[in-house]
């Protein structure tokens, strides 16, 4: 019999971010988003920088996930991320500043250099944070516009 729910666990080295019983999960795989329903075949994938969303009852929630791995089992999803934040926790102001800083940094150094790559990653992080915050509706319209 197929399980009806998924036990979603999100852990980072610094904390246990989330443990919830949910109906569907979408994880940001390295090569694209991956939707998971209960009863999914066991799977392991690498994660990129992106937004993880899950549906619990009729509510959809969002988290940012930054690099790591996800293990999918028929009744469980374990996300091992380097960093993860719930959309509600995101400091929009800070993310916005980080984005500007990263953009300025990228403009200064030559493309492809280690500094540039680091700045690009920082930019990506800031962008997903803003996007997640926007999706969760904690940011104003401006952020929505800027993140897209």
């Amino acid at each position: 019999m197929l399980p009806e729910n998924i036990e979603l666990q999100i852990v980072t080295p610094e904390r246990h971010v989330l443990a919830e019983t949910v109906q569907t999960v979408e994880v940001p795989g390295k090569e694209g988003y991956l939707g998971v329903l209960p009863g999914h075949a066991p799977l392991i994938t690498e994660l990129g920088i992106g937004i993880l969303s899950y549906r619990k009852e009729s509510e959809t929630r969002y988290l940012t996930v930054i690099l790591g791995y996800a293990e999918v089992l028929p009744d469980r999803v374990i996300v091992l991320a380097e960093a993860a934040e719930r959309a509600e926790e995101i400091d929009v102001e800070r993310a916005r500043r980080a984005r500007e800083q990263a953009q300025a940094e990228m403009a200064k150094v030559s493309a492809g250099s280690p500094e540039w790559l680091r700045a690009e990653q920082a930019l990506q992080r800031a962008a997903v944070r803003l996007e997640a915050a926007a999706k969760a509706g904690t940011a104003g319209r401006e952020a929505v516009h800027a993140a897209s």
Partner: protein
Amino acid sequence: MPTLLDYRRRIRSVKSTQQITRAMKFVSAAKLRRAQEGVFAARPYAHEILRVLRSAAARVESTTHPLLERRPEERILVVVLTGDRSLAGAFNSNVIRRATAFLRENSSKKAQLIAVGKKGRNSLKRAGWSFAAEYINVSANVDFATAKEIAGTIAELYAKREVDAVYAVYNEFKNVLVQVLKTHKLLPIDPAVLTEDGAEKAREGQRSGEESLPHDRTPRGEFLVDYIYEEPVEEIFSGLVPRYLESEVFRILLESAAAEWAARMAAMDSATRNASELIEQLTLQMNKVRQAKITTELIEIVSGAASATS
């Protein structure tokens, strides 16, 4: 012979020192609690990474990875973890002594050092060592980014074959009163870690409990699960090995920080106690002097009165 006033001054100064040590004790206790929470919070991740790594290791044809490669040990890298400040009892000097002894034992090999913590860096620098890298102000607030950076540095040196083995010398947090000095081999990664049997052996060193996720329903012998791998399993495996190293480095940083705050708390506790004792002694002596003074005055008055009446 010190006068009454001298004693009063001494006591006042000891009291103010005691206030400082007491405050530092409370600060250390708070920091210790945070460090301990960090140690606990890091366990589920470390546990899960290891589990996924093992199941990937069981699927790859051959578990080869630059970080697993064994070479004759000719050049070693030693990561020395100390605190940034003193007043932590023997915490820093123990690590430095152990590191120095370890380097002496291995004096036939070429050694490089990485210093984590100002104290270790300064005293080893004075002893004439130079560092491949140094990290300071880590223990006050250990974050994963630092662990990642350190792990990245040592992995790079190892993969470039600049060193043949990496050791960490650090204090492990046993409990509030006891820190255990450890010399731990970080690289090459022990292949036993990749199998369940070896894991049991490796886990003996760690404390049991609270390692796995709450409501963990992982069936033992997870190996049998036939995973689909989104990316080639070799790729997942070689990606996981450095993650494992990162989580090991992070664990060591956290352990060392917890041990440091525990040592500091104990040191400040005994300093506060010593100050109380000193105050008691000084008060006793002060009272003696005061009594002697009163007695002398009385004798003077009595003998004065006696001479006046006679």
